[in-house]
């Protein structure tokens, strides 16, 4: 119930985000008598009530644990049940910043999709603002209505089941008067001509069209020009997540020193082998063929000067070695989400 307002203590009926692992965060509504089952054990909801947000919760047996997190639009984005491709935080945060979506803004969003961006819009516009969101897929619409209700967004979000491309944006219950428009539609150019009826006539209106293909962008740009939008600009957000790592500092002088050591020990080894051969030959001559000469095991072998821990499993950052602090991207990176086409419409006031 608190995605748009912080609270300190978990109560019955709260939406919380359960951190199970780095890649698994599960949204649940806390309900007396219920139990959350995870691969780290079972957690009765009753044991969550009264705890502080952010608390670590152990299973009753004290073996496994989870963390109980406060919901935020960004956590919801990574944990929500996907119904469509969603707008991720690098894109959504840039759109919110660039269109200046702040407390009191009036936003049009089409379509609603999985409702992920709607949460971020709602957080930004607050109690004094409004989101008008449209979804033409009935099942998705119903699910969105349910979720916005559960998450306490009903005060600021108006969901409409409609295809805006053919039927426009006008609703009977309220004058929309939008100052920001976000279109995540396959053919935004069909929706753009309907916007004039519902956007503010008194202030600048910002639009952002979210399209994965260049062909869509071209048609969108044309439509924006034809419908009186100006300052048309297309952008693309590329984002990366960096992991911090440690890379061993291996100095050439150490490597040289080790090579010298190896060479020296090889020489000694040859001497030893010669002696061994001699001993064997002697034993053979004396017909004592059962003499057993113990060879050291490979694993326990003395490696002499060993600055880089060769032959041992070295944990990254292990003490006793020198390390560079470095970083690398994840193995698979998101290289394209969508193009963002921005434009503005300024009412030509007559003074």
């Amino acid at each position: 119930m608190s995605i748009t307002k912080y609270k300190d203590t978990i109560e019955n009926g709260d939406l919380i985000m359960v951190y199970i692992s780095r890649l698994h965060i599960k949204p649940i509504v806390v309900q007396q008598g219920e139990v959350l089952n995870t691969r780290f054990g079972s957690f009765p909801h009753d044991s969550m009530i009264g705890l502080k947000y952010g608390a670590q919760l152990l299973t009753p047996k004290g073996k496994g644990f989870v963390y109980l997190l406060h919901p935020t639009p960004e956590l919801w984005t990574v944990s929500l049940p996907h119904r469509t491709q969603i707008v991720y935080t690098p894109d959504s945060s840039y759109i919110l910043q660039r269109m200046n979506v702040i407390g009191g803004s009036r936003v049009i969003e089409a379509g609603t999709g999985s409702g992920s961006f709607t949460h971020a819009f709602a957080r930004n516009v607050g109690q004094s603002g409004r989101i008008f969101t449209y979804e033409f897929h009935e099942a998705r619409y119903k699910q969105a209505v349910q979720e916005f209700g559960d998450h306490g967004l009903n005060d600021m979000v108006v969901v409409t089941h409609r295809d805006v491309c053919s039927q426009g944006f006008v609703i009977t219950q309220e004058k929309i008067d939008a100052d920001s428009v976000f279109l995540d539609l396959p053919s935004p150019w069909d929706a753009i001509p309907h916007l004039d009826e519902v956007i503010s006539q008194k202030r600048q209106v910002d639009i952002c069209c979210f399209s994965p293909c260049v062909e869509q962008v071209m048609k969108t740009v044309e439509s924006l020009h034809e419908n009186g939008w100006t300052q048309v600009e297309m952008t693309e957000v590329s984002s990366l997540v960096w992991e911090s790592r440690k890379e061993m500092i291996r100095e050439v002088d150490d490597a040289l020193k080790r090579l010298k050591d190896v060479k020296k020990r090889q020489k000694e080894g040859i001497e030893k082998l010669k002696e061994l051969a001699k001993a064997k030959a002697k034993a053979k001559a004396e017909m004592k063929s059962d003499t057993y000469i113990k060879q050291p095991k490979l694993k326990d072998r003395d490696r002499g000067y060993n600055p880089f821990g060769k032959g041992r499993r070295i944990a990254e950052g292990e003490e006793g070695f020198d390390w560079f602090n470095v970083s690398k991207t994840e193995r698979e990176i998101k290289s394209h989400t969508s193009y963002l086409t921005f434009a503005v419409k300024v009412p030509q006031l007559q003074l």
Partner: protein
Amino acid sequence: MNSSFSHEKGIIGYDDWAIITLPSSATKIVQMRKGGSISLGKFGTFKVDHIVGYAYGQSFEVLEGKDVLPLKSISYGLDDTSDTKDSTPALEFQSSEDNRDLLDTGSKVQKITAKEIEEMKKEGGGNDVGNKIIERIVQGHESFEKKTIYSQEKYLTRKQRKFSRRFTVRNMTPSNLLNHIRKDRDPNKLMGLSEETLGLMMSHANVMPGGNYLLMDDTGGLLVYAMLERMQGQGSITLIHENDQPKLVLLNRTNYSEEELYNMVKPINLLEFVDPGDNRPTIGPLPKEEVDSMPNIRRIKYLRRMKKVKQLNESLDMVEARAFDGLIYASTINPVTFVPRIIERMKGSRPIVVYNQFKEVLIGLSHIFLRDSRVLLPNIYESCVRQFQTIQGRLHPLVTSIGGGGYIFSGIRVLPIEGAVASGRRNKKRSCEEREERNKKRQEKEVAAEPKDDTHL
């Protein structure tokens, strides 16, 4: 809602701070003083009274006598081909299929001299002059018609950026202010921060009305401004700074009053933050009779001082109560040693966002938090926006853009139970042995060598 929040500023009003964009796409900060004039250098001068009352975002052409003509856009009738009304008429000329006949003869090709242009500029004040100059330049260009239509358009756009007397008035939004400093002033004043990184910080830090945030801001107040805009007069920003006074020069260019800033932004210096108990203000309050009997000037000074004391005490209370809903850290003070101390003052399940121009600084911090169970999801993020030219049929990324937009470290402060052990998939016996071995080694090391500062980069 308070009317001075910029959200209500749809219309250009007196005393507003605003940003003006010129045809060259350079920007300028101005204030709308009643009866005043604003000079745009070679792009002309206009009276503030003529633009007040129009919507923000409106473009104008400068006319004779400091007057203006409202335009649909700054490129209206030039490359904006929508229905042209009465502004600049488009030039007519012939063009070539390709550039096979075009020879590069340098400046010889232009018959108009710089001196002639200067004289033309002196003739009149309106946009007509700009157009006349461009027309003469095209006429004086010997091989203009040997250029392709694309090349001609580019040439004209270049000349228009130089000579057309137009401008757009923009709202003083945090993004517009940031881009003005980043593109036309010095990006280093903002520690290299880009608009997309600012947006990412605001979202990761979950900045919203009613939150009580901790902030270190070495950008001159841009972050304070961006947060204030999102908080809409509800909640507070406790601003940790390292001097006697916080440096918030940019806030003087915004439309916030001193009173609004007092209510929302609570400065506290490092010493007070780190040691709240020992740094309580010791002045006053004095008995009422004594205050009443003070001379006027002294009383005003006293009351102003007490106001600050009250504000500081409120901040110290919050520090002691560990009552913060988020940390935003954009300081050149090494976060590796300071952030782990600050987060003790935060509530559970609240975001930590640390900005730095250099990833290397954040890597150090990330390493610390990978081994610190007080922070979940420690990651370093980078976001970079690529802009495209969107002329029909000639879509391509811009050839140059401003590099470097910084990085953020982000994580969530949580409240771990002392001594809790993870039950993982690992073989318990093995991990037990490993732990024993590690402990044994560590003890040996501690005896052998003096403790090493692993917080160092």
